[in-house]
């Protein structure tokens, strides 16, 4: 009996505490209109993803600082509340519950790594919160029926090469490549980029002559290279991360295979790439979501102020987080509010219906929250990697066919 009494007492006590807590929470909310706008985020600051996680954190911090230096949003300062999910998918749900439920943040934005985005977005959806995220590029993210999610980057993996596909298919018949060899790592992102281009080129009548998939951590590419080299394909597309792309290129150089065009995802944009393949980079293409050279107006300010704040220029992780901030800021400014409740619906509707100017270019979304753009295409021209597509962002003209490597 005593146990039951104790249980009752605890329950009543807890309820009282909750009621009081809720009242206590209400009071500052009345005054939020001149207090700071609190933005809640959960990030992997320790554990496996701590490296990119910290990059995303710097991007958000740069956004908050630059926004506040420019007078804040709706006349209010922006304040970040960042929790560490320790790279653990189980914690991310608890973190967002805490941010929205007990910390009563005004806005939430996404965590890092695709697999954390889906559970986090589900929590945000339950509370009816707008959820803009910097890192959920996988197809599954957009198949969950989220009504509140927006991916703040130019394109999902399958659309990375859209500008290149358009360019190639528009070439006159004599110049258009007729055969293509594809080699992709068995990885949703890397494969997605190569297969996105494959689909479009095949639909445009360009023949696929080699289609190889290799496991991550493959170190010997000589057999794949032999297949590609003997196929004499006009064009080579590598769905690569970094080292696999380098290994494949070296193996192809050893076999003296000279395609008219070679495109690799990720690898060519890495700072070590040129040295790794013996500086024979001329003409190699790569899609990129972000470059410091991108001519979009807000990017100049971002690169300058970010560099001043952190001492080195921003990379893609930082830029994606910053872009997320820009999208949220645009929505808040347009809707004229930033708090939980009805305001969130206004924010969501606004993002859904509008185009936002960001450091990665103008962004707009379809009904699943998938961005409608494509990545810029960069090419190694004159010893440095430069934007060649789309036409309105290019630094130099695309070189085709590419010089020998």
């Amino acid at each position, binding site marked *: 009996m005593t146990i039951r009494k104790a249980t009752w007492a605890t329950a009543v006590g807890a309820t009282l505490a909750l009621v009081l807590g809720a009242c206590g929470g209400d009071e500052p909310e009345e005054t939020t209109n001149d207090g700071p706008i609190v933005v809640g985020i959960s990030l992997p600051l320790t554990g496996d993803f701590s490296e990119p996680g910290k990059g995303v954190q710097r991007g958000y911090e740069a956004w908050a600082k630059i926004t506040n230096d420019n007078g804040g949003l709706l006349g209010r300062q922006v304040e970040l509340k960042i929790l560490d999910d320790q790279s653990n998918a189980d914690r991310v749900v608890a973190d967002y519950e805490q941010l929205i439920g007990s910390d009563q943040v005004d806005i939430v934005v996404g965590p890092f790594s695709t697999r954390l985005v889906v559970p986090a977005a589900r929590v945000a959806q339950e509370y009816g919160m707008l959820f803009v995220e910097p890192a959920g590029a996988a197809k599954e993210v957009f198949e969950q029926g989220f009504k509140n999610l927006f991916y703040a980057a130019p394109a999902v993996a399958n659309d990375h090469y859209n500008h290149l596909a358009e360019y190639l298919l528009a070439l006159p018949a004599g110049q258009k490549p007729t055969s293509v060899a594809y080699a992709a790592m068995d990885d949703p992102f890397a494969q997605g980029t190569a297969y996105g281009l494959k689909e479009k080129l095949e639909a445009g009548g360009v023949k696929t002559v080699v289609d190889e*998939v290799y496991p991550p*951590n493959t170190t010997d590419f000589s*057999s794949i290279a032999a297949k590609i080299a*003997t196929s004499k394909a006009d064009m080579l597309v590598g769905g690569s991360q970094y*080292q696999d792309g380098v*290994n494949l290129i070296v193996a192809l150089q*050893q076999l003296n295979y000279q395609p008219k065009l070679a495109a690799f995802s990720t690898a060519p944009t890495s700072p070590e790439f040129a040295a790794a393949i*013996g500086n024979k980079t001329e003409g190699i293409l790569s899609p990129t979501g972000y470059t410091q050279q991108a001519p979009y107006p807000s990017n100049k300010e971002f690169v300058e102020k970010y560099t001043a704040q952190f001492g080195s220029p921003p990379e893609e992780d930082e830029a994606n987080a910053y872009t997320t901030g820009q999208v949220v800021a645009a929505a808040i400014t347009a809707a004229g509010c930033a708090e939980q409740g009805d305001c969130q619906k206004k924010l969501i509707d606004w993002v859904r219906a509008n185009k936002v100017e960001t450091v990665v270019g103008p962004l707009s979304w379809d009904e699943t929250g998938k961005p409608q753009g494509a990545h810029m295409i960069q090419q190694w021209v004159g010893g440095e990697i430069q934007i060649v597509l789309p036409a309105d962002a290019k630094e130099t003209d695309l070189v085709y066919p590419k010089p020998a490597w």
Partner: protein
Amino acid sequence: MPSGALLFQSVILGLLLGGLYALLAAGLTLYFGIMRVVMIAHSAFLILAAYLAWWSHTELGIDPLLSMLVTVPLFFGCGVLLQRLLLARLRPVTLTMMSVLLTFAIAVVIEGLLGYVFSGTQRRIQLGYGSASLELFGARIAVVKLIAFGLAGVALAALYLVMKKTTFGWALRATIQHRDAAKLVGIDTDRVAGFGFGLGLATAAIGGTALSLDTTIYPSLHWHWIGPLMAIIVVGGLGSVPGAAAAAMVLGLAQSLLQIELGTTWAQTVFYLALFLTLAVRPQGFFGGRLAQRF
């Protein structure tokens, strides 16, 4: 049907790959021959040697081949110590099984230390001649692969000469054939076993250097190698160096040719299929002697 050019190119690549397998498997089969030790850490030492070659190239700027001046004697010493201080203490009755556990632990320690010191990032030596190649009847032979093959060939030939022509080699072979009889004729089998183990590990130093010339290395790469190598020495006949070399060439060639039709992922299964077939049909291996039956 693949074209003739592709077949020819794949045969060449397969032979080059087989040569490297042969050298690496030679050391592994030697340990088993001498001591009935299954040396899981062999490929971990291989990767260690590759890392040392990479490190001396990037940090000290010397050609990776020169790193062997240090790594080969160093590994020989390690092998002797390893045998004398650790493996010799295992009880003869359970030696084979316990050696698996012991060398497994050593492999994990090496992997962990490599990860700690060099991080998990994939590394590759950037050589001036890394992408150079020679032409042979329309096929291409990469210079680095040729050097690796040459290293393997020279090391195997040296190993063969040591085994056949020197007193130490006779003592080693006697120890492999019958330890007790060898003792009776006055061979200090413990000493010979120690040196034999050192010799095995020295092949890992040469193999690792050859490996580092043309592939990427990372700390856990040795798990990728130990399976095929184990399969090779069983197919070749446990304890037989020529058997291991022959099996390595055949399987390397088979892997390279199967990659044309099956792709990279499935071609690797050739080693395990060969292992199953050997154990089912001819457990003593196709080239080797009587040792496997006692295994």
